[in-house]
């Protein structure tokens, strides 16, 4: 069952069969609407509060009773957040962190797509000894919790003298990840094998088949892998926490922490503004790629 081949249909409306059923349906629909609206308010509320706090001057954030919508919108808070403490040494170079995060994303997304495509192709469409066993092992590795790997991986990177560089954060992406391999393998299997056969008869090598037959048909799936990889890197916290030491090399996740003063007390409006800026790209990305997103996640659940 390929969820990518068939769109997830979420927009058609019900067809009432009988008159009494129609009435029952209307009540039912109304109730569902009500519940959904209430829940939406609850779920959307933190976002709204995030943005309104970002637009307030600091005293209004601490006001009791709370200020729901600030009188004037302090749009400059966003600018202030980016240049927070710029006049003091040890300020938060927000843009630098953004750049670092982006640079990392480019490297991990490229590596992720390239390596996972190759490997998934092998598991999906090539026959070789030990393939199915290794695939099962691959799936099993998803159960290994990161904490168990934390220490030896750190020791490994220390041996390589990679601590303090970006390498521990992007090099592993070029060697595949179980999750993306699984995703792509499922997808690759849905491409008709006749196409490969035809190309083979024409004398094409496996590489040619991969590049010219399978890949072009897989753009949505590859996009999903790229998307997940981007979001994973953008949001990653533990990796940079352990491997990055020079503050100039920090990523946004780490940088956000600096707004919280070590001595207690925080410029909440600036912190919320900075948070908004960090969340924004991911949300914008989501809006442009909704379909892919949903289908990508859907396929992970369907085994």
């Amino acid at each position: 069952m390929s969820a990518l081949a068939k769109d997830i249909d979420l927009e058609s409306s019900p067809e009432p069969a009988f008159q009494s059923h129609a009435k029952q349906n209307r009540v039912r629909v109304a109730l569902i609407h009500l519940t959904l609206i209430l829940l939406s308010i609850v779920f959307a509320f933190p976002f709204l509060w995030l943005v309104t706090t970002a637009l307030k001057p600091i005293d209004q954030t601490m006001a009791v009773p709370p200020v729901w919508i600030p009188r004037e919108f302090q749009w400059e808070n966003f600018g202030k957040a980016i240049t927070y403490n710029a006049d003091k040494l040890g300020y938060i170079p927000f843009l630098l962190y953004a750049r670092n995060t982006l640079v990392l994303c480019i490297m991990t997304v490229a590596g992720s797509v390239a390596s996972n495509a190759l490997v998934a192709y092998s598991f999906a469409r090539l026959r070789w000894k030990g393939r199915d066993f290794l695939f099962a092992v691959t799936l099993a590795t998803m159960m290994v919790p990161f904490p168990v790997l934390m220490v030896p991986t750190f020791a490994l990177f220390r041996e390589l003298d990679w601590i303090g560089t970006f390498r521990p954060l992007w090099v592993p992406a070029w060697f595949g990840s179980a999750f993306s391999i699984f995703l792509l393998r499922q997808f690759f299997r849905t491409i008709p094998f006749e196409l490969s056969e035809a190309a083979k008869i024409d004398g094409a090598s496996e590489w040619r088949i991969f590049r010219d037959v399978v890949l072009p048909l897989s753009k949505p799936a590859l996009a999903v892998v790229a998307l997940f990889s981007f979001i994973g890197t953008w949001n990653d916290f533990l990796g940079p926490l352990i491997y990055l030491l020079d503050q100039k090399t920090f990523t946004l996740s780490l940088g956000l922490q600096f707004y919280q003063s070590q001595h207690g007390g925080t410029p909440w409006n600036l912190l919320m503004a900075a948070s908004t800026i960090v969340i924004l790209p991911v949300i914008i990305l989501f809006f442009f790629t909704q379909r892919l997103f949903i289908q990508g996640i859907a396929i992970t659940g369907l085994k």
Partner: protein
Amino acid sequence: MKRSKEGLAGYLFAAPWLIGMSVFLLYPLASSIYYSFCDYSVLKPPVWVGMENYRELFQDEVFWKAAGNTAMYAVMALPIGMATAMGLAMLLNSKVRGMTVYRTIFFLPSLVPMVSLAVLWLWLLNGEHGIVNELLKHGGIKGPNWLGDPAWSKPALMLTGIWGVGNSMLIYLASLQDVPTSLLEAAQLDGANAWQKTRNVTIPMISPVILFNLVMGIIGTLQVFAVPYVMFPGGSPARSTYFYAMYLFDNAFRYNKMGYASAMGWIMFLVILTLTFISLRLSDKHVHYGGS
């Protein structure tokens, strides 16, 4: 001839992962066992101490507290999280108008970076200025000191978790789409009401997905780190949110007891394997694989 060429190609294509898995997964996993039997501080070579680390862990009150906190949290958060995700998915599956909007609203929070999430909720739940307590006040309830009261810190964490169920919700939604309408209609004709339909048709049909989410959920909740790390530094108040992964992290990188931390890591791994195995076993009876 062609077979072996294909076989070779197979290995070549899979090479990045084969190397990657060996270097970044299997080798560390193996060294982790070795370190767990050593006193290791990275600054000095590991010194074999046998079962010493495990023995010390057994008597370590902080270890038990962290494990207890993690277990308690998992037991609270998993069922509620799964129920919420499923409930939302079912609501969304009713094909009412405006579905995409609702779906987006429920899903977006799961995209938020951990740190932003933690920081946002730190603000929402602040004892003096937090808006959550303000809202409760309007409803006539005196909100607890979410961040300062040990009894409420785990529930506070759960709130952040529930806000982020969008991911699993989508998975449930997709699987709900796959439930054959023929079966539902048949049940309807038999006179089943909504609850009976859900219980006897829907749930069994999506049971593989429930299992999948359960296993993923177990693995995820047992490893929880980033959000409590930012929201509750040190597991304060009074160590109520000091979780397993945090104690592991502290042992490895603050107290320099990497051998000790490795032992903790292995225990966690074994627990996860056991729980997964149990889930799979139990599921044999309940999970219905409908021809996939």
